[in-house]
């Protein structure tokens, strides 16, 4: 009955009909009677003291209802926006966390920082009022540069060298000893370029306070509404948790940028309580560029030690990570536990040492963006491995194969904290090389050369830690909260079910995938299952969606809840069929007394559970509704091998990707169609980082130069090709689905594959992302000049 729709089936998505007919319901689609509109006044200076702020003209502007500032926020006791992950420096001292008010108080520290909000009857009235605000900004020294941040003027009182923490991981002396004994040492300076997430739906918030019940409902574009409610209640003080309902309806993409607790939703909720009217804000794209948390921005030095045969002996990494002007919700964890712990990659490198200095700059806060730390780790590692192969004159595939963790070595303890449970990296590489026709590349290169084109091929073998997070481990690593996930299954009396998940879908297709899981388990059709998420008033609790955790953690919770439903169903069936629960089998939606033809269907059991006749109430509670919380024992470890082939026009530096191959191991896959879509999107974002996307600040003024889609090159359809995908399957050993997670793989694996391919094509050692035509052409000219000189 469920084989065509169950686990492993390519089911068309249940949620699509509303999206393709324009019936999706995103935050900006929601309006409330009496609604006001908020427009934020934002700093035009990178670092300045607000000498004075006269709001009287704005207040008097037609249609303006209120002008609120940081002083009003402080007076009402609305607290700082917290960072939830404590990191300690190498000397044991805790990270320096400066206050982060939702509206700046006295000093602004980046261009775009909100310092006031104007609330009007219409958006244009609010905008007209905001245009009348003209604070007396007194400029302070500003720095936007990651590498020099420690010697720049201080941004926060009491934080020396703009240093948040100086974190280390690994065995430094063992690593130094490895280098002392090495036959070869490879060194590389690596920049991981700053990115802007750019979900196509901008962020939005609508605060709707009901003075009758004292309940504040906050509609917002959040990837984790329950966590938003918790943080806004417990730390920010917006409202008591039982008086705060957070609703994340359809959300138009997140990629990490919608995990965090931002100023704007805080202010809309606060203003609605204060003004006793609904208050709505929807970002325009310029605000998204200025104020959504950015991603990446690392400056690193990497050194790899190898023996005479090419075996890796040690890896030493020194990274400066830009946090921006304030700490965002998870920002401290990204360059540390989601980065340093992944530096072993797929390899047996016995000694690794990494130090990370995270610094404040006069830029937008930086936090998780698709992959979060893992793309930075993979880029560094796969670039230096490729460079090592060229330095040693070895085939890059062979050097990788020589150093890979063999498939019989799992579970595998790396030198940087993680224990990989399972994998088969050689199989991924072999499959990718075959699919990409790696062996046939020299002939294609020669053919391209005959046409005047430079062709290159690049590999990348990535690993990531997904399924955030084992709570015990997360706590040891500094997380303020455990990161289990919850599920609730309500079987309705007529036998269909409503699922409540604590995860959140913003494009990942949970309404289909989760229904497939439960359909397989309970033996009912997909059309009998409704998945509900994104409303704290409906689901019990949850930690939201990020880090490819929804299926591995949330899906596992659903499995637990399903099993509880079956267990209770057996008891009910045993009573109805005059048997014992242990003698009842359940298969494909039918309860059966073992060895007999006595059966009850799932629907009959559900009906009996809710409208019982002759029911033993003292032994068996009515109802069929179960909840489960699942806390994983370990991260999951998706891995894969990517191959990129490019052609460069040496006259212009223009680079085309001609073939892109991805072989991934995601463990058990529920819906291959959805998984492939996730990989496509991830690869596109990775190629965007590698070839197109650059967040740039003016080094003097601190102005954001790439402040719109006119200046920030988003990948378009003709920048990309169709991707060739395949999978290798080794199931996760510790969750009941065997699932590993697939959402970030493409963004992690692709950037080094692209840059390795381009550097191969043009014969240079280093090339910073994005590899724009100008940068490639300039590198080619420099290389040609160097060749001529030598």
């Amino acid at each position, binding site marked *: 009955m469920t084989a065509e729709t169950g686990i492993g089936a390519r089911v068309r998505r249940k949620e699509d009909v509303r999206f393709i007919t324009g019936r999706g319901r*995103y935050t900006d689609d929601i309006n409330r009677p009496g609604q006001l509109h908020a427009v934020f006044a934002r700093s035009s200076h990178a670092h300045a003291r607000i000498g004075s702020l006269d709001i009287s003209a704005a207040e008097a502007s037609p249609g303006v209802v209120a002008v609120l500032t940081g002083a009003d926020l402080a007076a009402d006791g609305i607290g700082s926006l917290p960072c939830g992950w404590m990191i300690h420096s190498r000397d044991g001292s805790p990270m320096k966390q400066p206050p982060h008010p939702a509206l700046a108080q006295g000093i602004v520290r980046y261009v775009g920082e909100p310092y006031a909000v104007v609330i009007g009857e219409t958006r244009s009235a609010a905008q007209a009022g905001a245009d009348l605000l003209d604070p007396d900004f007194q400029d302070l020294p500003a720095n936007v540069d990651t590498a020099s941040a420690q010697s720049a003027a201080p941004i926060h009182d009491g934080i020396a060298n703009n240093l948040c923490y100086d974190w280390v991981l690994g065995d430094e002396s063992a690593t130094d000893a490895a280098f002392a004994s090495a036959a070869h040492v490879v060194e590389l300076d690596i920049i991981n370029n700053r990115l802007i997430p750019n*979900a196509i739906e901008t962020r939005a918030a609508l605060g709707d306070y009901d003075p009758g019940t004292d309940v504040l409902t906050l509609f917002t574009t959040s990837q984790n509404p329950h966590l938003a409610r918790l943080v806004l209640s417990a730390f920010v003080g917006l409202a008591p948790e039982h008086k705060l309902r957070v609703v994340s309806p359809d959300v138009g993409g997140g990629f990490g940028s919608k995990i965090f607790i931002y100023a704007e939703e805080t202010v809309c909720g606060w203003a609605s309580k204060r003004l006793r009217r609904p208050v709505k804000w929807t970002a325009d794209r310029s605000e998204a560029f200025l104020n959504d948390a950015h991603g990446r921005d690392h400056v690193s030095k990497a050194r790899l030690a190898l023996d005479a045969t090419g075996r890796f002996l040690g890896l030493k990494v020194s990274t400066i990570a830009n946090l921006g002007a304030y700490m965002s919700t998870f920002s401290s964890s990204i360059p540390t536990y989601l980065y340093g712990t992944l530096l072993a990659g797929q390899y047996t490198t016995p000694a690794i040492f990494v130090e990370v200095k995270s610094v404040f700059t006069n830029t937008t806060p930086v936090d998780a963006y698709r992959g979060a730390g893992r793309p930075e780790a993979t880029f560094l590692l796969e670039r230096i491995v490729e460079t090592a192969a060229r330095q040693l004159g070895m085939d890059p595939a062979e050097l990788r194969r020589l150093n890979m963790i063999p498939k019989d070595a799992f579970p595998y303890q790396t030198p940087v904290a993680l224990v990989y449970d399972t994998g088969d990296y050689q199989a991924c590489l072999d499959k990718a090389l075959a699919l990409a026709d790696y062996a046939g590349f020299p002939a294609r290169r020669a053919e391209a050369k005959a046409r005047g084109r430079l062709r290159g091929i690049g590999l990348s073998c990535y690993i990531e830690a997904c399924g955030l997070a084992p709570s015990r481990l997360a706590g040891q690593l500094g997380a303020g909260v455990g990161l289990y996930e919850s599920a609730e299954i309500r079987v309705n009396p007529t036998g269909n079910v409503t699922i409540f998940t604590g995860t959140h879908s913003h494009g990942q297709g949970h309404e289909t995938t989760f229904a497939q899981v439960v359909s397989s388990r309970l033996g009912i059709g997909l059309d009998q299952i409704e998945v509900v998420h994104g409303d704290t008033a409906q689901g019990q609790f949850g930690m939201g969606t990020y880090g490819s955790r929804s299926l591995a953690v949330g899906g596992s919770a659903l499995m637990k809840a399903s099993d509880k439903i079956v267990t209770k169903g057996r008891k009910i069936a045993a009573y109805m069929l005059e048997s014992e629960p242990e003698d009842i089998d359940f298969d494909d939606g039918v309860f059966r007394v073992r060895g007999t033809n006595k059966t009850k269907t799932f629907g009959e059991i559900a009906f009996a559970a809710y409208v019982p006749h002759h029911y033993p109430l003292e032994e068996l509670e009515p109802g069929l509704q179960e909840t489960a919380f699942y806390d994983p024992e370990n991260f999951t470890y998706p891995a894969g091998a990517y191959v990129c082939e490019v052609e460069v026009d040496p006259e212009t530096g223009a680079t085309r990707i001609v073939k892109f191959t991805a072989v991934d191991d995601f463990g058990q896959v529920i819906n291959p169609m959805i998984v492939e879509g996730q990989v496509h999107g991830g690869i596109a974002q990775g190629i965007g980082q590698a070839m197109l996307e650059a967040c740039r600040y003016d080094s003097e003024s601190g102005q954001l130069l790439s402040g719109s889609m006119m200046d920030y090159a988003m990948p378009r359809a*003709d920048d990309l090709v169709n991707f060739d995908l395949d999978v290798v399957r080794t199931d996760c050993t510790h969750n009941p689905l065997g699932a590993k997670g697939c959402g970030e793989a493409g963004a992690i694996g692709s950037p080094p594959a692209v840059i390795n391919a381009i550097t191969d094509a043009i014969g240079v050692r280093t090339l910073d992302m994005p590899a724009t035509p100008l940068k490639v052409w300039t590198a080619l000219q420099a290389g040609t000049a160097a060749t001529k000189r030598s």
Partner: protein
Amino acid sequence: MTVKVTTTVNGKPVSGDVEPNTLLVHFVRENLGLTGTHVGCDTSQCGACTVHLDGQPVKACTMLAVQAEGHQVTTIEGIGQPGNLHPMQAAFQENHGLQCGFCTPGMIMAGIGIADRAKGTTLSEETIRIELEGNICRCTGYHNIVKSIAAGARDM
């Protein structure tokens, strides 16, 4: 000061009072409550607001509501409904041409335009990619959008 706009949207005559500088996309979303047409950028780059004006795809953020006076506007809500999908809508579902769904109405409206322009010829993948230059998707990597438009064009 407001001005009255009278036009035809999805086959029905409509009118509304708007500020003269009101964009068509805001008229459609806010005055008419047709929220399937989305706003994704300030610079006419993303195409999430694509609608048809007299059968031709246009970006509804690039024209004023008053410019639609007397014209036929078609939004995503006007081309097919649940249970009675337009072939291009059906192709997007069949080929997994969407993820978060936010760019999707604009992609479908642009896709219908691409298919209309190619009538009588075979649409190559390269042509679709080039003609999609006005629409941005951040989720799908375009792989399945290109497949969807090719399939939708075949079925139209």
